């Protein structure tokens, strides 16, 4: 499955709720304010293991728009909208943590 999270970890619990129910074969795509969760900060540890396993993506346009390109945590993979489409195609059912 592909889980999309569009809210910052500092604003809502969407990311935590997603992490509570994500299975071993699923990936996470951070979009919109969700990309804030991909930056290096006091909450980075939440995603560290999944990112190290290559399962955390962030939408490049949203990262750049928020000025955090140089502040990303380790192992976050950037994708553009076409990459977003590929993730939807490759990973089956999409779950949005809106």
């Amino acid at each position, binding site marked *: *499955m592909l889980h999309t999270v569009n809210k910052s970890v500092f604003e809502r619990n969407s990311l935590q*709720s997603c992490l*509570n*129910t994500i299975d071993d074969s699923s990936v996470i795509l951070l979009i919109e304010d969700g990309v804030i969760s991909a930056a290096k900060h006091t909450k980075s540890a939440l995603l560290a293991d999944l990112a190290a396993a290559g399962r955390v993506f962030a939408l490049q346009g949203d990262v750049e728009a928020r000025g955090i390109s140089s502040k990303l945590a380790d192992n976050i993979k950037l994708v553009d909208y076409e990459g977003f489409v590929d993730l939807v195609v490759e990973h089956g*059912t999409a*779950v*949005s*943590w809106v």
Partner: protein
Amino acid sequence: MATKKFMYLNRKAPYGTVYALESLEVVLIAAAFEQDVSLAFIDDGVYQIVKDQNTDGIGMKNFSKTYHALGDYDINQLFVSAESLKERGLSADDLMPLVYEDEDDDWAEKPSVKIVSNAELKELMSEQDVCLSF
């Protein structure tokens, strides 16, 4: 028409925003399509099916009674996150007693609400073909 597994993911409390009400409206329509429908109540979504809702003081329609109709529409898989309940100081007794009549068991009345762990939710979600979030 093929049958798919649809999950309706409800994570917001009722009344503060319209998502809960309009999610329920979709679910009622979905019943006519004879798909395999389940509802998940996670985070503040658990407040959608808490009992004793009374909207007299806010001038809004109390739509909580409508959840009782779901059983009549063969929608009887309402999964509630145990962790979300616990975090909020709630238990099974705080939820509406939603039931359905099981046609495969001489129309015995059975509970539609199942309280499930995150591990069970994980399993349920991974089986879905379509997940609609509200």
